[in-house]
C-alpha cells in the first residue's frame, strides 16, 4: 500500500505481549493502524520493526517516516515485564530501626482470604539486604532521634559487601520531612558510587510506610533495566531522524519525556493500558455522551475504565503482580475475560469460563499453535461471528475444525449438550463477567450504568459490547473503527502530564489560618518547580494547565477523598469535600472535622488536540454485503443467515439494521436483532437499540 501522507504526523506505539500496535495520524486527520509482532527479548528491535513495517507499507524510508513525525509517543511494557519476570536490579533497602520488615509483612493484605494456600510473591528485597539505621521522626516530621551516621556507614558497608545495584531508602514519616533520607542518600552516594538510589520522599511522598516503601523498592528494582532501554531507544530514534524527544505514557495516562521519567520509572507500570484515556477523550466528542464506560477486551483480559462528565477516575493504589504501588494512575478494573479465556467443565458438571487464559502462546485451539483447550475465540468462530482463515494480515489463521474439536471434546461431550449450545454458553458466561466488571466500576462508586454509553474496543470487545450494554440498560454502544489499536491511537491524543503528591496532615478548619497559608506556600513551591520543568520542555504559557487538588477526610477515618479545588480556602474546600463525600457514601457528618491528608498538583503541558474530522453524510449509497453466512445471534434468535459487510466500504451516515456482521481491519462487530448500526460523522460506529428486543433465554 502506498498512501499520501499530509505532514506532519504523530505516531503512537503500544507494545503488547503479542502485537506491537502502531498508529499514525497525519495532519489531515487520516488514521493508519499497523500491527507487527512484538519482540519481548529485544523491545527496541520490536519498536523499530513496527516503525519499519509502517514505513514500508507507506512506501517510505524509516528516516523519512521519523523526520515527518512531530510527536512520537510510546507505551512500553518494559517496567511491567521487568517486575513480572523479576528481572530487575539487585536491590538493597534502608529503613528506620525497628521497622525493617514493613516490606515483607505487607500489612497482611491478601485479597482472597479463602485461597490461603497461595504464597505471596517473593519479596523483592530479602531481609538480609534490608538494613536499619537509627533515626526517628514523629508524625509531624519533627526529629525525635537525630540520624546516627555511624549506623548509616555500617549499612553502606553491608550493602557494598552485598554488591547491590540499587538501594531504596524508606524512613518512617519521611514524606513529611525528607531530611534524614537525603542525608542517608548523601552518605550512600559517596560510599557506593554507581549504585542507583531511590528515596521514598521523592518517588512517592505519601503517608503509609508499606505502600511508600514498596513503591520505592519497585522503582529501584526496575530503574536499571528501564532507563537505559528508554535512553537507547530515544537516541536511536533521534539518530534515525526523529526531530523531537520520545514521550512515554505513564500510569496516569499522561505522557512524559524520557529525561523527566528517568528518576521515577515506576510511573510506567501501566504505560500501555493507561493510554486508553486519550482515546476515550477523543471518542467522547464523537459518541455524543460525556458519560462513558470503555471495555477493552484483548486476548487475556478485559480492562474497564469509567469516565463521568469527561473526568476519568484515578487511584493511588495500584497492584501489579502482588506488588503495591502508591502512584497516581488511571483507575482500570481488569477481569480475566478475553479471546483467549479458557472454558471447562467443573467436577460437578457446571460450565466455567476463565479466569485462566491460553495467552498468546499457545492461544486458542483454532490458532493451531498447540492450544488444546476451548477458548472464547474458538466459540466465536464456531458460532459464525468470526470467519475461518487468515487475520491480522496473515499473522494468525483461524481453523474451524480445531475449534469444534476442542469444544466438543472438553465441553459438549462431557456436559451432554451440543457444540453450538456449549459455545453459546461460554459467550454468555464471559459476557456476564464483563457485565459484572462494568457494574463494579459504576455501582460501587455511586454511578448508574444506565446513564452511560459503552465504548467497546480491543480486538475482541465489539463482539461482546451490545450484549453487555443491553444487559445493563445502556442505550448505545460506540465502536471506534480502530477498536483493535485503541491505546496506540490514544497515544496520539495525549498531553504531557506530571502528578505531584505531597503528604501533609493538618486540620482544615483552623481559625488562625496558619495551615491554609502553609498550604498555599507549598502549592506555590510545587508550581514553581513544575513551571521550570515545562520551561525545559518548551511549553508555551498558553498550553500549561495546573490542577490543584487535596486529599481530605473526616478526622478519625483512614480513607481520604481527592477533591479538585480552585482556591485554598476553608469554605469552598469543605463544600467540595462534602459534595464528593455525599456522592460516594450517601450521607454527611454535618460540621464534622475535616483533615487535609495530602496536596496534589497535576501539571499538564497541553499538546494540540487531534482534530475530529466530521465527514459529510453519505447516506444515499446503500451498503452492500460481501456475503451472507449463518451466525448465532443470541439465545432467542439462535442461528440466522446474516449479511456480512466490509467495514472499509461503509461511509458516514449509513445505517445497517441488525442482524449484521461488520469486518473491520482490527476487529469484528456484531449487530443484533432490533439493533441498528450507524456510521458516525467521524467515521466510527454507533450501535443503537430499539426498545424491548428480548434476547434473553
Amino acid at each position, binding site marked *: 500500500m502506498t498512501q499520501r501522507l499530509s505532514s506532519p504526523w504523530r505516531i503512537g506505539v503500544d507494545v503488547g505481549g503479542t502485537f506491537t500496535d502502531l498508529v499514525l495520524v497525519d495532519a489531515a486527520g487520516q488514521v493508519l493502524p499497523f500491527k507487527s509482532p512484538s519482540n519481548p527479548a529485544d523491545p527496541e528491535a520490536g519498536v523499530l520493526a513496527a516503525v519499519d513495517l509502517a514505513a514500508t507499507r507507506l512506501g517510505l524510508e524509516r528516516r523519512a517516516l521519523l523526520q515527518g513525525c512531530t510527536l512520537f509517543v510510546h507505551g512500553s511494557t518494559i517496567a511491567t515485564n521487568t517486575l513480572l519476570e523479576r528481572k530487575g536490579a539487585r536491590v538493597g533497602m534502608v529503613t528506620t530501626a525497628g*521497622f525493617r520488615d514493613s516490606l515483607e509483612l505487607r500489612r497482611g493484605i491478601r485479597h482472597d482470604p479463602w485461597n490461603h494456600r497461595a*504464597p505471596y510473591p517473593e519479596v523483592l528485597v530479602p531481609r538480609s539486604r534490608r538494613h536499619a539505621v537509627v533515626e526517628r521522626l514523629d508524625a509531624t516530621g519533627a526529629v525525635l532521634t537525630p540520624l546516627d551516621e555511624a549506623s548509616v556507614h555500617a549499612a553502606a558497608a553491608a550493602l557494598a559487601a552485598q554488591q547491590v545495584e540499587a538501594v531504596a531508602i524508606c524512613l518512617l514519616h519521611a514524606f513529611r520531612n525528607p531530611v534524614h533520607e537525603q542525608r542517608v542518600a548523601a552518605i550512600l552516594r559517596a560510599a557506593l558510587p554507581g549504585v542507583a538510589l531511590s528515596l521514598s520522599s521523592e518517588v512517592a511522598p505519601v503517608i503509609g510506610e508499606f505502600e511508600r516503601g514498596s513503591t520505592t523498592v519497585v522503582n529501584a528494582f526496575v530503574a536499571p533495566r528501564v532507563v537505559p532501554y528508554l535512553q537507547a531507544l530515544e537516541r536511536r530514534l533521534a539518530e534515525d531522524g526523529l526531530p523531537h524527544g520520545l514521550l512515554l505514557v505513564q500510569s496516569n495516562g499522561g505522557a512524559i519525556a524520557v529525561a523527566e521519567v528517568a528518576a521515577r520509572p515506576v510511573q510506567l507500570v501501566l504505560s500501555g493500558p493507561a493510554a486508553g484515556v486519550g482515546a476515550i477523550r477523543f471518542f467522547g466528542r464523537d459518541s455524543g455522551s460525556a458519560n462513558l464506560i470503555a471495555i477493552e477486551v484483548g486476548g487475556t483480559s478485559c480492562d474497564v475504565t469509567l469516565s463521568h462528565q469527561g473526568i476519568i477516575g484515578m487511584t493511588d493504589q495500584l497492584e501489579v503482580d502482588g506488588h503495591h504501588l502508591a502512584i497516581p494512575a488511571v483507575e482500570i478494573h481488569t477481569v480475566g475475560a478475553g479471546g483467549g479465556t479458557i472454558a471447562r467443565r467443573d467436577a*460437578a458438571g457446571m460450565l466455567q469460563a476463565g479466569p485462566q487464559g491460553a495467552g498468546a502462546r499457545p492461544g486458542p485451539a483454532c490458532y493451531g499453535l498447540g492450544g488444546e483447550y476451548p477458548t472464547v475465540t474458538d466459540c466465536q468462530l464456531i458460532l459464525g461471528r468470526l470467519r475461518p482463515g487468515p487475520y491480522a494480515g496473515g499473522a494468525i489463521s483461524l481453523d474451524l475444525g480445531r475449534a469444534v474439536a476442542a469444544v466438543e471434546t472438553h465441553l459438549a461431550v462431557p456436559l451432554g449438550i451440543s457444540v453450538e449450545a456449549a459455545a453459546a454458553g461460554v459467550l*454468555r458466561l464471559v459476557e456476564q463477567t464483563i457485565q459484572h466488571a462494568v457494574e463494579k466500576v459504576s455501582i460501587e462508586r455511586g454511578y448508574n450504568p444506565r446513564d452511560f454509553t459503552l465504548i467497546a474496543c480491543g480486538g475482541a470487545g465489539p463482539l461482546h459490547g451490545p450484549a453487555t450494554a443491553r444487559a445493563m440498560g445502556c442505550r448505545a454502544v460506540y465502536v471506534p473503527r480502530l477498536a483493535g489499536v485503541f491505546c496506540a491511537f490514544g497515544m496520539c491524543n495525549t498531553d504531557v502530564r506530571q502528578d505531584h503528591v505531597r503528604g501533609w496532615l493538618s486540620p482544615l478548619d483552623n481559625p488562625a489560618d496558619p495551615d491554609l497559608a502553609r498550604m498555599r506556600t507549598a502549592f506555590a513551591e510545587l508550581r514553581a518547580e513544575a513551571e521550570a520543568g515545562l520551561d525545559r520542555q518548551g511549553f508555551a504559557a498558553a498550553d500549561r494547565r495546573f490542577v490543584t487538588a487535596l486529599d481530605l477526610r473526616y478526622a478519625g477515618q483512614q480513607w481520604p477523598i481527592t477533591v479538585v479545588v480552585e482556591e485554598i480556602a476553608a469554605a469552598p474546600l469543605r463544600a467540595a469535600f462534602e459534595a464528593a463525600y455525599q456522592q460516594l457514601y450517601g450521607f454527611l457528618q454535618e460540621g464534622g472535622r475535616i483533615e487535609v491528608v495530602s496536596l496534589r498538583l497535576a501539571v499538564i503541558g497541553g499538546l494540540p488536540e487531534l482534530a475530529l474530522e466530521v465527514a459529510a453524510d453519505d447516506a444515499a449509497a446503500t451498503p452492500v454485503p460481501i456475503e451472507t453466512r449463518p451466525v448465532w445471534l443470541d439465545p432467542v434468535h439462535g442461528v440466522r443467515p446474516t449479511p456480512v459487510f466490509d467495514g472499509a466500504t461503509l461511509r458516514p451516515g449509513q445505517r445497517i439494521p441488525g442482524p449484521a456482521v461488520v469486518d473491520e481491519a482490527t476487529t469484528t462487530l456484531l449487530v443484533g436483532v432490533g439493533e441498528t448500526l450507524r456510521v458516525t460523522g467521524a467515521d466510527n460506529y454507533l450501535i443503537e437499540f430499539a426498545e424491548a428486543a428480548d434476547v434473553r433465554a
Partner: protein
Amino acid sequence: MSAPEGFADPVLLAIVQKQLDHISKQMGWVMTRTARSPIFSQSHDFSCFLGSRDGEVLAQADGIPIHTGGGGFAIRAVLRDFAGDMADGDVFILSDPYVAGGNHLPDWTLVRPVFLHGALVAFVCNRAHQSDIGGGAAGTYNSAATEIFHEGIRLPVLKLMERGTLRRDLWRLLLLNTRCPELMEGDLSAMLGSCKVGAERLASLLEELGAERAEACLAAVLDHADRRLRAAIAALPDGEWVGLDGSDTDCFETRDIPVKVTLTKRGETLRFDFTGTAPQIKGFKNSGIANTYSAVYMAISSFFDPAIPRNEGTYRCVEVIAPEGTVVNPRPPAPMTMNTVYPAADIVHACWKALAQAMPERACAGWGKTSYGISSGPDEHGSVFVMYHWHGSPGTGAVLGRDGFHSMGQFTTLGGLSLPNVEVYESLYPVRVTQQEIRPDSAGPGEYRGGAGVDYACEIFVPTEHSYRAEGLGRPTGFGVNGGDFGAGGSFEISIDGGPWHVAPRYGVERCGPMRIRIASAGGGGYGDPRRRDPAAVRRDVADGIISEAAAQRIYGLAAESSARS
C-alpha cells in the same frame, strides 16, 4: 430444596450461580458506600447473603469466613416465628444467639423475604457488627460479662419493616439501646438499603427465569455445591479421627478448656462430633450453635479446594453434633460476644487437626493465637479514640508448598482483615510505635515453616481504658502438622506510668495512665519434618535472621560450615 430430576442446563446453572454471588456482592457495595461506621466502610465486618425460601444460604460471595453458612439459622428462625405472616416489603431483624439464630449479639441480621407473583421464593440478608449495643462496655466487647445480659440488648426475631413501612416504635427502641445512636441509625439505614437493592435484583433475576425454572435453578445451585463437596470428601478414606484444641483461660482464671472433635468419614459424608468438649465457661468465649456451625464450615472450606462453592448445599453432607451445655453449644445465659474469634479459632483448629489425619497432604498448621489489646481514651480534641493493636498480630500456619505468613490479621477472617500502617496510626492516635519487626525463632519449624510473629512495642501518651485479649500468651498455640512443630508462644508485657514491666492480664479491662506495651506475638505452626526443608531455604532464613544459626543446626540439621557460608 432439591432440584427436580433431569435439571441439566450447565450453562444456566453457571449463570444463575454467578448472578447470585454478584447480587450478594452488590449488596456489599451498597453497604460499604452508605454505612457510617468505619467498621463497615473500612474493616468490612459484615456479610451479605441470599437464602432459599426454605432458609438455606444460597450465596454468600460477600462476607467474612466466620460468617459462612451460619446465616441459615437466622432465616430459619424467621420462618419458624413468622411462617404465614410475611409479605412483600417486610424486613425482619434479629440478633439473639439463643432464640433467633444469631451468632453473637453485636451482629445484627436483617432478613428480607422476596416474593414472586405473591409467593415467597427467597430471602436476602445482611449481618453486620454494630458499633455499640449497650451492655456493660462501650464497643460491644465486655470481657467482664458472665451472662449474656451483660453484653447488650437481645433481639428476638422482630418485624422492623412491615410492607415497606418502618416500625418507628421499634426503631426508637433500638436507637435507645446504643451509646452511638447516630452511627446506628446510619448503619441500619445502610443495611435496609442494601437489602432493598438485593431484593430488587434477586426478584428481577427470578422473574426473568420464570417461577418454575427459578425454583429449579436455585435448587440446582445448592445441589451442585452438594455434589462438589461430596466428590472431594469421597477422595478421603473412611475412618474416625480426633482433633483437640482449646484454651487455658475462661477470661477470669487459668483452666483447661478443651475443644474436642471426633470426625467420622463414611462414604460421602462427614460427622463432626464435639462430645468431650469442655462445659460452658464463665467468660464470654462460649460459641452459640450458629457460630459453631460457621466455624466448622470455615474449617471445611479452607481445607478443601477454595473453588468449591460455599452455600448451604455445600454442607448438606456434613453433620455437626454439639452437646448442649458445652462451650460449643451453651445454655442461656452464658455470655458469648467473643465467640467469632474465640472459641471459633479453637473449633476451626480442632477440625483442621482431625481433617489433617484424613488427608495429610492438605493439612493446615495452626495459626498463632492473638495477644493484643484495645486502647480507648480521649484524643486531643476530646473525642474518644479506639485503637486496636493489630500491629502485634501473630504468624500463620504453613501448608504443603508454602511457608506460613508472618504476622497477619485475625484468623477467623483468614487474614481478610489487613493491618494498618504505623504512620497512619501515629497520625490518628496519641501513640508512638517503636518496633514492629519479625520475631526471630518464633516461626514453627517444618519442611515448610510457620510464619513468624513480631516484636511489637508501643507507647501510649494519654490515660486510656485498656481491654486485654491475651489468648496466645504463654503456651504455644500455632501447632505443627505432619512432623512440623509449634510456633513460639506469645508474651505481652506492660509498664504503666513509667513503672516496672509486668505481664499483662489475659482478659479484662483496666484504666491505665500513660503506658508502654511490649508484645512478642505467637508464631504459626510448621508443616512436615524440618530436616526435610530445602537447605537453601534454611540458609536464607538464617541470613535473614528469621531463624538463628543454633536453631538451624539443632532443628533443621544444617551443617555448621554450610550456614557459615551464607
